[in-house]
Each structure stands twice: as structure tokens, then as C-alpha cells.
């Protein structure tokens, strides 16, 4: 199954002052691969994800996405980021814009589309997440699940090669989680390469090619969902899996 690598993060270290948050992390994804990242709070999952689009500048290491070296100072980071979609736990929709406005901002201001082109692409992206009829609504008029789907539409409208999800469902009421996971499943079926930080074990079991367990800034072990969930090799992994399954 694995094709050629599309995300190659190697030897990533990240310090926040005296805090050593990532301690030499390697994460490589083949095209169309879906990798799940799990681990205790504070283990560095978000920081790692944010290094993959340079929202966080690694202290050392290298990050190459879709052939572009993100840490090379000559790289046009704004251009590179259009190929790397990101979805946040708290949605981060622009509250003063409609759903369509949220989706088309980058299309118009960065991708250089005209308003009508951007509106057409934006409407198509909203339709893909099942919200064609909500284009004119502001985030305040949408449920959490709908907001997160608009946030996904905002990212996929730019036709990224990779999507990063940072706990996309943990701010949602349980009954709204399914709709967001459904959209993520569709994305996966369309062949999107995805890195997902989440504790949705059911989704991981069905959709993930690989599960990565992190603790204290390092990858402790990785493997297929079945391997990590049923027969973890490390005591720390076992303890963590046991903990989240009790919830």
C-alpha cells in the first residue's frame, strides 16, 4: 500500500525556553496514508502537528512536505501551506464572516481567484462537507459539528495534498462527533493523506493505517491499529490505552 513519502519529518526537536517538548521525532507518511497520533496530555502531539506546517518552528530537524523543504528560508511558506490543510480543536472559524466567506478568504487573497471563481470553489467545498445550504450562515448560527465541517471545507477548498487534524472532535457534543468523522472518512476514501491527533479509537480502528503513540516528546511505538490497541509492546502504551478505554 505505501506509495512514495509525502510527509517527511526527521529528527524534530522543539524547545520552548527550557522546556524540551519534542525530542527527536521522526514521522514519515506515504501518499494516501492516514496516521493516528495518540498520547497523554502534554506529550507533544499538537506541537508535532504544528511543526508539519511550520506554525511552530522546530528547533532542529527537517520537515519536507510534498517535496518542499518547509524549513528552508527560501521557501515561500504561504504557498507551501496551501497544500497542507489544518483543522483545529476549537474550529477557529472567522466569526465576522459567513461560512462561504470563511472558505473563500484564502482562495481570493492568496490563491488569486476572482470572487466568482472563489465562490464556486467554496460552494463546492461546502457541498463536500454536506453544508451547501449553510453558505450564508455565520459561525454563530451553526452547531459545533457544522462549524468544524466548515473548517474542514476551508482547508480542502485549497486542494491540499495533506490534511492535519488536531483533536477535531474533542470540543463537540457526543451526538455531533459522527458527522465530522463521516466527513473525515469521505476525505480518506478520496485518497487524502492525513495526520490525525485524536482519541476516537473506533475511528482509528476503522480508518487508520498506522497508530503512533507519543509520550514525553518522543514516539514510543507505532504500528497497525490492531497491534497498538490489542498487543501494545510497551508498558506505557498499555497503560495509556487502558486509561482511555475506561472512559
Amino acid at each position, binding site marked *: 500500500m505505501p506509495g512514495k513519502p509525502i510527509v517527511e519529518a526527521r529528527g524534530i526537536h522543539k524547545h520552548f525556553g527550557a522546556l524540551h517538548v519534542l525530542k527527536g521525532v521522526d514521522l514519515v507518511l506515504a501518499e494516501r496514508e492516514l496516521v493516528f497520533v495518540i498520547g497523554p496530555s502534554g506529550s507533544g502531539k499538537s506541537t508535532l502537528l504544528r511543526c508539519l*506546517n511550520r*506554525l511552530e518552528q522546530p528547533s532542529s530537524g527537517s520537515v519536507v512536505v510534498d517535496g518542499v523543504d518547509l524549513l528552508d528560508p527560501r521557501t515561500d*511558506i*504561504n*504557498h*507551501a*501551506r*496551501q497544500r*497542507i*490543510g*489544518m483543522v*483545529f480543536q*476549537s474550529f*477557529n*472559524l*472567522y*466569526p*465576522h464572516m459567513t461560512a462561504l466567506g470563511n472558505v473563500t*478568504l*484564502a482562495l481570493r*487573497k*492568496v*490563491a488569486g481567484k476572482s470572487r466568482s471563481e472563489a465562490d464556486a470553489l467554496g460552494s463546492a467545498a461546502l457541498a463536500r462537507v454536506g453544508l451547501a445550504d449553510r453558505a450564508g450562515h455565520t459561525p454563530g448560527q451553526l452547531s459545533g459539528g457544522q462549524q468544524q465541517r466548515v*473548517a474542514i471545507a*476551508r*482547508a480542502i477548498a*485549497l486542494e491540499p495534498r495533506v490534511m492535519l487534524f488536531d483533536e477535531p472532535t474533542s470540543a463537540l457534543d457526543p451526538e455531533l462527533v459522527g458527522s465530522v468523522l463521516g466527513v473525515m472518512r469521505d476525505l480518506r476514501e478520496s485518497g487524502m493523506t492525513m495526520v490525525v491527533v485524536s482519541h476516537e479509537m473506533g475511528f482509528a480502528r476503522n480508518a487508520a493505517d498506522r497508530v503512533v503513540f507519543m509520550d514525553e516528546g518522543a514516539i514510543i511505538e507505532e504500528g497497525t491499529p490492531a497491534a497498538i490497541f490489542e498487543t501494545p509492546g510497551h508498558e506505557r502504551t498499555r497503560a495509556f490505552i487502558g486509561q482511555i478505554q475506561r472512559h
Partner: protein
Amino acid sequence: MLQTFFNLEIIEAAWPIILAGLGNTVLLSLVVVPLGLLGGLGLAMLASVRKPWVRWPLMAWVDFFRAFPPLVLLIFLYAGLPFAGLELGGFACVCVAFFLNTGAYYGEILRAGIDSVPAGQTEAARSTGVGRLQTMLYVVLPQAVRNVLPDLLSNTLEVVKLTSLGSVVAMPELLFQARQAQSLTYNPTPIVLAAVIYFLMLWPLVRLLSRLENRALAGRG
């Protein structure tokens, strides 16, 4: 009493002078408010650059001009700078003084507004490739301005009142013209008239401000 403070004949005689003053006060406000906002916007945007070599000079600048009485600043520019060979006209002095003084105030208000916008907003925009400046312009500032609208309006009210300082450098604005009319007519009526005009001009703004403040309180509660 009415003869002294609200003499109709004198009002009639002074009216054209006062009206010219009112016109100039409005014009002056239309120049110094945008000027101060522009200066404030520059300061506030600089403040979002979190580098010590930007931060410290910026803080010193803002503190200095907020602590410096605007009247003293204006008189210094008008009467002090000529000794250094720099002779600005009254209008230019008022513009510079307001740019420095009210710019510092607007700057602090806008900075607070920008700080009130969650970092996630900027991160979301940057993650889609929107540049730093455009993120500020399209994502952060609209929310920032909305969050500090009452403060911005309140400061604007102060700025319009402060335009009366122009009278000390012979700007023919409302107060200056009223003083002229007073000395021509030997009667305080023109001053009273100016006061009434200031009130009528600013009262709608004050009302609007109250409504905004009440709405902000209700929104918070």
C-alpha cells in the same frame, strides 16, 4: 442676565464668525481623527511584532506621548521649534501634535483590541497560507475594532473636544472664533453659543456611546 449671557442681537452679529469656527472645527476633526487612527493603527500593528527591539522603543514612545500634556506639546511645536529653525504653521502643529498624542491613545486601544482576538484566529488564517499583513487586515482587525468600539468612540469624543486646543495656535476653530467674537462685542454670549454648539454636536456621540457600552455590558453578562 439673559442680556449678558444669551443676547440675541449679539448672537445675530456673531453668528457668521461662529459658523466659520464650527466649520473649521468639523474640518479639523475630520483631519485629526483619521490621522490619530492611522498613527494608532501603526503603533498597534507594530506592537504585535513580539521582538524586544520593537517592543521597548514602542512602549517608551506610547508612554511618553500619553504622559505629555497635549497643550504643552502643541505650544512646544508652535513656539519652541522655531528656535531650532523649524517653523510649522498652526495647522501643521495641530496635526503633528494630534498624530503624536491621540495616536498613542488610539494605539493602546487598538492594541488591546488586537490582543482580545484569540491566537487561533491568526493561526487558522496563516495555516491556509494567508500572509501576516492580510491576516491582520481581514481577520484580526475587524474583530479587534468591534471589540473595542466603545473605547474608540470615547477617545474620538475626546479628540473632537481637544480640537479646541487649536485656538492657542490661532487656528480659527470654534473656540477661537468665539473668543474673537467676544472681544469684538464685549459680551460673553459668543462663548455660551460655542458651548451650546459643542454640546449639540457631541451629544449624539455621547448617546451612541452609552448605548454601545450598555450593549457591551449586556453581551458580557
